[in-house]
């Protein structure tokens, strides 16, 4: 090893005290948690670690059995969902013309409200774990699909030129380049998917399963068993964190570096005239809707499903527009929907802003970063929804409770995404600011926030379906208003016309808002961070 260019490993710093900050912070958090729980004792809100541990030890058998059941459903959902994502991404890659259609369909399915699809799946499957597995799969496939799409396009053109200089075609490209180039993105997608699968399985169990964590959670919530609720949430969080960590470990073992940018927006429509730029997505949207209607009608007819609960597109149209009570139906649906939006929207904005602001604050005071990032990653995977009844118990059934739940659900993913984005500010850019001894605030606004924008917008987009999920679940389980409660009520009274109408309305709204957020994202990024747009 005498070559002049030998890469010398960075010399270890001279003997320093080992870094205790992280373990100390975690211990501090746990103690703070216990103290807070003691402070709030008797108010039925929060259990401390000691009570939770006691509960877990006292109910070890029950918890283990439930955990295994849910884990199995989540694992199957994880598998199927990710396989579906791989299949979709592959088709989108091989038939690029179909990609907008596939992405549109994938988005609409992802935006289906779990609260309503759960009961319908329950009717379809009868007993068993079918609904849990399906909901878990629905909860994961979209993020993985997006990661794969970005990854499959992330390779620089010269790698493909290289393949072509040897006269090889697209198959070689796929097998020798794309699959490997995508791997880090795929692993990052799986990491996000693992907690989502667990949450999906639990929500699936809310809808009348016999066994599992979701069943215990419902029981604990209904009985206002605070210790049990927090114990279940803790177990779910621990499982999610473990899965997240394990997948990260596997990624590092495979030598894959976490990708710089996740879930980038769809490619720009370039310099085409404005009319075309608006007309094309519109046509694509209509085409997608048409395909959805066809798929919907076709699958229901093909499977010969009973029209009583398996409503067809025509039934929903009749229910909302041509029936005798159509006007009343619309009024009921829209007023419930309005109530939900009026809570989901402030919660969404609050969670987003607080997450970004917290990330910036952490960067200004970097000592916080080493301790806050792992904690935020951990809390991100907590199925906060299971604590919804307790939050409403603390904050009341009014607006504050639901808004808080939505905000909390969005806060942590946004915080993590923004921190990652801030951390990825190019070193040279920071060096330039350093060389002028710029203040941390100047550095933040001049270099780091622009670098954070793509991550911020990506999470703003992904947070839209999450906000609807949080709001409707909170309404369903706890507050009893809005469209969440309407869906739960109609599911239990077999008013399937209203249920299907609610699904259509929610899925369409979430998809549209998602696309709008994507447009906004594109507008801002092309102005402030054009280099971050995936071409």
């Amino acid at each position, binding site marked *: 090893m005498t*070559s002049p*260019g030998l890469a010398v490993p960075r010399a270890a710093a001279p003997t320093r005290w080992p870094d205790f900050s992280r373990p100390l912070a975690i211990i501090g958090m746990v103690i703070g948690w216990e103290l807070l729980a003691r402070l709030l004792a008797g108010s039925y809100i929060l259990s401390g670690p000691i009570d939770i541990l006691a509960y877990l030890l006292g109910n070890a058998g029950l918890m283990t059995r439930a955990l295994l059941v849910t884990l199995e459903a989540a694992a199957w959902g994880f598998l199927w969902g990710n396989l579906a994502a791989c299949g979709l991404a592959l088709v989108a890659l091989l038939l690029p013309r179909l990609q907008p259609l596939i992405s549109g369909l994938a988005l609409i399915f992802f935006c289906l409200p779990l609260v309503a699809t759960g009961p319908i799946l329950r009717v379809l499957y009868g007993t068993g774990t079918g609904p849990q597995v399906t909901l878990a799969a629905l909860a994961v496939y979209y993020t993985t699909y997006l990661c794969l799409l970005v990854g499959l396009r992330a390779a620089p053109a*010269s*790698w493909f030129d290289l393949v*072509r200089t040897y006269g090889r075609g697209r198959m070689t490209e796929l097998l020798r*380049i794309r699959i490997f180039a995508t791997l880090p993105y795929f692993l990052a997608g799986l990491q996000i998917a693992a907690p989502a699968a667990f949450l999906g399985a639990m929500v699936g169990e809310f809808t009348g399963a016999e066994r599992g964590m979701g069943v215990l959670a419902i029981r604990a919530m209904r009985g206002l068993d605070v210790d049990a609720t927090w114990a279940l949430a803790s177990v779910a969080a621990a499982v999610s964190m473990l899965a997240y960590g394990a997948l990260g470990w596997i990624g590092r073992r495979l030598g894959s570096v976490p990708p710089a940018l996740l879930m980038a927006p769809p490619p720009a429509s370039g310099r085409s005239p404005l009319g075309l730029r608006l007309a094309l997505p519109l046509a694509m949207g209509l085409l997608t809707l048409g395909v959805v209607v066809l798929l919907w009608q076709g699958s229901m007819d093909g499977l010969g499903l009973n029209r009583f609960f398996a409503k067809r597109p025509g039934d929903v149209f009749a229910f909302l527009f041509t029936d005798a009570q159509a006007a009343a139906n619309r009024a009921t649906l829209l007023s419930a929907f309005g109530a939900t939006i009026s809570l989901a929207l402030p919660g969404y904005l609050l969670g987003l802003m607080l997450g970004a602001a917290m990330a910036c604050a952490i960067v200004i005071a970097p000592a916080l970063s080493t301790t806050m990032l792992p904690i935020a990653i951990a809390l991100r995977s907590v199925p906060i929804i299971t604590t919804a009844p307790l939050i409403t118990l603390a904050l009341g059934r009014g607006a504050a409770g639901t808004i808080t739940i939505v905000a909390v659900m969005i806060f942590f993913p946004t915080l993590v995404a923004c921190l990652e984005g801030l951390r990825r500010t190019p070193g040279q850019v920071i060096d330039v600011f350093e060389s002028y001894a710029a203040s941390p605030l100047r550095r933040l606004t001049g270099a780091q926030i622009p670098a954070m924008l793509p991550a911020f917008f990506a999470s703003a987009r992904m947070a839209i379906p999450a906000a609807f999920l949080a709001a409707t679940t909170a309404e369903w389980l706890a507050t009893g208003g809005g469209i969440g409660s309407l869906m739960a009520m109609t599911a239990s009274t077999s008013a399937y016309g209203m249920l299907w109408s609610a699904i259509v309305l929610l899925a369409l709204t979430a998809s549209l808002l998602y696309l709008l957020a994507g447009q906004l994202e594109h507008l801002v990024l092309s102005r402030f961070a054009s280099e971050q747009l995936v071409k």
Partner: protein
Amino acid sequence: MAAEPRDRPPPEVRCQGLAKTYGDAGGALMALSTTDLVFEAGRTTALVGPSGCGKSTLLRLIAGLESPTTGSVEIGGESPLAVRKRAGLAMAFQDASLLPWRTVRGNVALALQLGRMPSDGEAVDRLISLVGLDGFEDSRPSQLSGGMRQRAAIARCLVTEPGLLLLDEPFGAVDELTRLRLNQDLPRLWEKRGTTTILVTHSITEAVLLSDRVLVFSARPGRVVADIPVALPRPRSRDSLEHPRFRMITDQVSAALMEGWQADAAQ
């Protein structure tokens, strides 16, 4: 596939009426104006010219990675595609284009795999050592410096022993000293077999030292403004730099570059 490329004599490259315009009528950008060029078999030609004048574009047209707007390219009477299909050419890209998940060895071996050739660990290691990367066979590109990456990319080009080498600023990120050493050592590889080589470089010294002929391009849209033969004895070495004719030729090249630049500025 077809016959082993190693058995063939190096090809002559003919470009006829070759031009390339990027973009459509609205935002059209002429990258290379019509050129007729013949690159003689087994000789080395250096292309120099201001940045953005279409040198890379010309190489890509010859390799058939880009289709010409007008004109055609023939490599030894064949189409570029036919030559590529039997691994008859290799190209070094301006950025080294190594695959980050493969080691240096894996990246060099990739050319054999893409060229449907039997794996040949010995040849791979020999070339890695030739470009001065001994001890880094198992390193990944991220652990190498820019210049080391470019050297690995050159090893990848040479391992298939192609008849035509297209090198796009292969030593761009290499320090002067290593560059001089590579300039001495590497050409021996392709000179011995008489590989037809087309080399883009920004260094006039390098252009003259390595080539039999220097083509000077004007600014965009690129066209050849001077065709300067390099009649220096081979094999060349550091001593060639002292050759009385060496300075003369480099001055000629600089003058041609300057002229093209001034003609441009006058417009």
